[in-house]
């Protein structure tokens, strides 16, 4: 029986999940959608899952915190998983039945569904609770089961407890001060202050052509960014959100955006279980959002400073340290910062869909989309992912957070700025 330690970020998610008042809206369910060229039969998929040691092991994992002074961890349940596969006939990318469904950590943290299209092909939907793994872990999981890779204990992550030293404690303290100081004051957010009984999630996909995808790098360089895309993309998004809030008559002065960064080494095949993420925190001043170049530079300078000062490592130390806290105290410490949401909005760039998974069970994969969780608040998440040299942007929001018209104008501005590298309007 495996017992797997939580990473620091897992414990953060666990505290949110256990203490969040509006659990219906907590939104920690993630999905990976693989559009296939032919029909996929549920029995075929079920057979594969029943034979996969990795799928059966992960399917039996339950999150436990046995004593309030102990770190939470994964423990195997003895219940056998029969892999009930939900089948739906629909031409919608993600029908409501799937998009609104949530995975609870009280049972199996992963599930599969098949959407049969009217054209005769199918889409495979893999849903999992974010606590079990991150987006990169999910891609590795799919690779493992569909390529029938032999199961390795290393896939599971930390089965032994890491030592926490004075150096880690010092790092954690620095991170706490950094997070508190950068998130000071009133932060801008799209989510209304009113509480809702039930929140309905929506998803829009902005698909870029190969030619448009090539423009990403060119536009980014036009905005003065020498390498990578994250500073530029975050600048485009911040400007669009700022424009949106101004159109609502608000006068936001600063944004606070945490951006996840994968701690795994590039090219690694694991671990699959756990969230191996740390964060950069960007405090974006509204005065710096006047031009794309100024905004991109403002963000890039913060990134360099945080790497220089080892902020992401320190933040990871902080999450490791807080993992020992009772979830109620953890939740209080995270949420007590005034009435601020945890972020102005969420932004992530996922890794490219693995080339080895361009076919599965003999069927060609026509497209792959990773849909991250959308925590409420802030209730607005932008996620980028590349498939077959083409970028796509997933925009997740809740009905009460963004209207259709606002969503359309947001998308229009983001698309224009990314492709042209020039300011919209």
């Amino acid at each position, binding site marked *: 029986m495996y017992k797997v330690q939580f990473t620091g970020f897992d414990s953060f998610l666990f505290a949110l999940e256990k203490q969040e008042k509006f659990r219906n809206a907590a939104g920690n369910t993630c999905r990976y959608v693989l559009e296939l060229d032919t029909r996929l039969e549920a029995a075929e998929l079920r057979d594969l899952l029943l034979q996969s040691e990795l799928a059966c092991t992960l399917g039996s994992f339950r999150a436990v915190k046995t004593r309030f002074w102990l770190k939470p961890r994964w423990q195997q349940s003895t219940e056998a998983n029969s892999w009930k596969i939900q089948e739906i006939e629909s031409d919608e990318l993600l029908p409501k039945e799937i998009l609104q469904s949530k995975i609870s950590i009280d049972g199996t943290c992963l599930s599969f569904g098949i959407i049969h299209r009217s054209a005769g092909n199918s889409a495979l939907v893999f849903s999992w609770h974010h606590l079990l793994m991150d987006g990169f872990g999910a891609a590795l999981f799919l690779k493992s089961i569909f390529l029938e890779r032999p199961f390795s204990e290393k896939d599971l992550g930390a089965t032994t407890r890491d030592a926490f030293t004075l150096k880690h404690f010092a790092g954690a303290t620095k991170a706490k001060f950094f997070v508190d100081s950068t998130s000071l004051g009133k932060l801008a957010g799209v989510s209304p202050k009113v509480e809702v009984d039930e929140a309905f999630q929506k998803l829009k996909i902005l698909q870029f052509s190969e030619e448009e995808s090539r423009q990403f790098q060119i536009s980014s360089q036009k905005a003065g*960014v*020498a*390498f*990578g895309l*994250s500073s530029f993309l975050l600048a485009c998004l911040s400007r669009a959100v700022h424009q949106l809030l101004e159109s609502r008559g608000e006068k936001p002065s600063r944004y606070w955006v945490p951006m996840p960064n994968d701690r795994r080494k*590039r*090219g690694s095949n694991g671990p699959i279980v756990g969230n191996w993420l740390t964060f950069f925190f960007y405090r974006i001043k509204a005065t710096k959002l006047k031009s794309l170049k100024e905004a991109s530079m403002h963000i890039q300078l913060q990134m360099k400073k945080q790497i220089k000062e080892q902020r992401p490592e320190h933040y990871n130390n902080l999450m490791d340290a807080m993992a020992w806290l009772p979830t109620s105290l953890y939740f209080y410490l995270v949420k007590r910062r005034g009435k601020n949401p945890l972020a102005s909005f969420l932004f992530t760039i996922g890794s490219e869909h693995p080339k080895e998974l361009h076919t599965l069970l003999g069927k060609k994969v026509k497209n792959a989309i990773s849909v991250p969780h959308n925590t409420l608040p802030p209730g607005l998440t932008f996620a980028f992912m590349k498939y077959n040299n083409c970028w796509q942007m997933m925009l997740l929001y809740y009905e009460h957070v963004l209207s259709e018209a606002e969503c359309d104008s947001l998308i229009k501005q983001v698309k224009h700025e990314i492709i042209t590298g020039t300011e919209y309007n």
Partner: protein
Amino acid sequence: MAINQEQITEALLSYIKKNMLDDAVIFDETTTLSSVGLDSVSIIDMIVFIERKYGIVIEEKDMLPENFHNVESLVRCSMSYL
């Protein structure tokens, strides 16, 4: 003692292999950084490593894409500060 290009290349390659890449990844000074998944965060990390180790500061005017194509171009750019 003067530092030569080979020494910086060796130090940077060893730093990248130890901290950023899985053992299975084949990587040398001519490998395009983006082709092995090294992103903006990794590149800034490399710059910070060179700046700390050799006591230099790479100026804004040299923050150009052609200087961050691979380890060879980054080392060549760094050499102009030594």
